[in-house]
């Protein structure tokens, strides 16, 4: 079966089993390895991509249902060479350790911050129920995300 997908603004073709999870299509066919294959159950968030603007676990979406959707992966964020404000905050706070969870963290938190810029620390932690990090212990990730909000506020 052949399918056409819109990935990061580009038309890409996939030939294969229609039930193939989007995660596998991204990694194996399109070689977009930023989304990570960690739990394949929808608990860890490392495979998170944006589908029509909504952060989604790509391990749980069959590619056949995504023909009319706009898919954005971590590779599609930011302008060539530049980090997004949230990515920059993570770098500035020295938050990254092994790095495998961060694409998913960026995907989830970018959308959350856009929708709830006034969120408290507790609300931000609740928003990360589906994003596991095994290395950092989370607090610095939250610090960095809060600093983005404060920077956006200061800019206004």
């Amino acid at each position, binding site marked *: *079966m052949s399918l056409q997908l819109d990935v990061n603004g580009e038309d890409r073709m996939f*030939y*294969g*089993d*229609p*039930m193939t*999870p989007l995660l596998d299509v991204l990694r194996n066919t399109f070689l977009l390895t930023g989304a990570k294959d960690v739990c*394949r*159950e*929808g*608990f860890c*968030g490392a495979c*998170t991509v944006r589908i029509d603007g*909504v*952060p*989604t*676990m790509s*391990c*749980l*979406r*069959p590619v*056949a*249902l995504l023909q009319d959707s706009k898919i954005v992966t971590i590779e599609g964020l930011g302008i060539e060479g530049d980090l997004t404000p949230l990515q920059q905050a993570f770098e500035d706070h020295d938050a990254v350790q092994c790095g495998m969870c961060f694409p998913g963290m960026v995907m*989830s938190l970018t959308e*959350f911050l856009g929708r709830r810029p006034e969120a408290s620390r507790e609300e931000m932690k*609740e*928003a990360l*129920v*589906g994003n596991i990090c095994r290395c950092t212990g989370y607090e610095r990730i939250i610090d960095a995300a809060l600093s983005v909000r404060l920077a956006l506020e200061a800019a206004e």
Partner: protein
Amino acid sequence: MAIQATSSIYIAKSVSDAVSALTDQGPSAELFAGGTWIMRAPLRQEKERHSYVALSKLPELSVITVSENEISIGSCVTHAELAEALDGLPDMHVLVTAAAKSANPAIRRVATVGGNLSTVKFSAADLVPAMLCLEAEVEFMSEAGIERMPLGDYLHRPAGAARVMTRVILPRSEALSAHARLPLRKAGDYPVAIVSIAVARRADGLIAAARVAVGSVENVARRWQTLESAMSGLALDPHLIAGRAAELLGDFRARDGIEADGWYRLKVLPTLVRRALETITQQ
């Protein structure tokens, strides 16, 4: 080189089209709504079926209508959509909590009402007890046409018939409600026990009628009729009623699981009853 597709997924054009497709393909076919359990099947070493009928292009299944007498929820409404649409409705607190707190944010945006009510092996589904205590009815379409049945009956339906749930209907009422769920972490894991309560009070403040549903304790969620009877005519006193609940635990055959055994699920039930009632008294 042509790659052999080992699965097929048919995107239904209408609900009756979905019913026909299911009927044609027989028991090897499965409905695909949110699909979270289907996509996990290989991991859980479950036998995978290979033909699916998807409901993703049927907007009529995503409609929520709120009227004075009832609420109609399309079977493909997601948890997130449900929580947002019913937020603030005084009689829907139990359902809003259930929809807003289950699983994690990304799953809530994909998992559907129909999926949550229909996945027989998932004993910890949040929406099931919440809708049971709201006396939900399920409407579905089959070869025989459109039928309705109470959710409680639907949960024990015989397998096999090609059925597509179209919507869930909830009667409105003056009752206040609350949902108390207990995961082992703060959140993110399936609750080991769930209590959903709706309480209607008399003019003098005493309980006129209570509907208590318990989930995750047994394989299938159900109503706690003995506690409901005991609550009738009592003051809305969370501690007192929790005490009565503690005497009625023998009603349940609690299930053992990897995360918790039956004794624990039972032991926490009175606490969950108390918490749900405390939430109601604060509304």
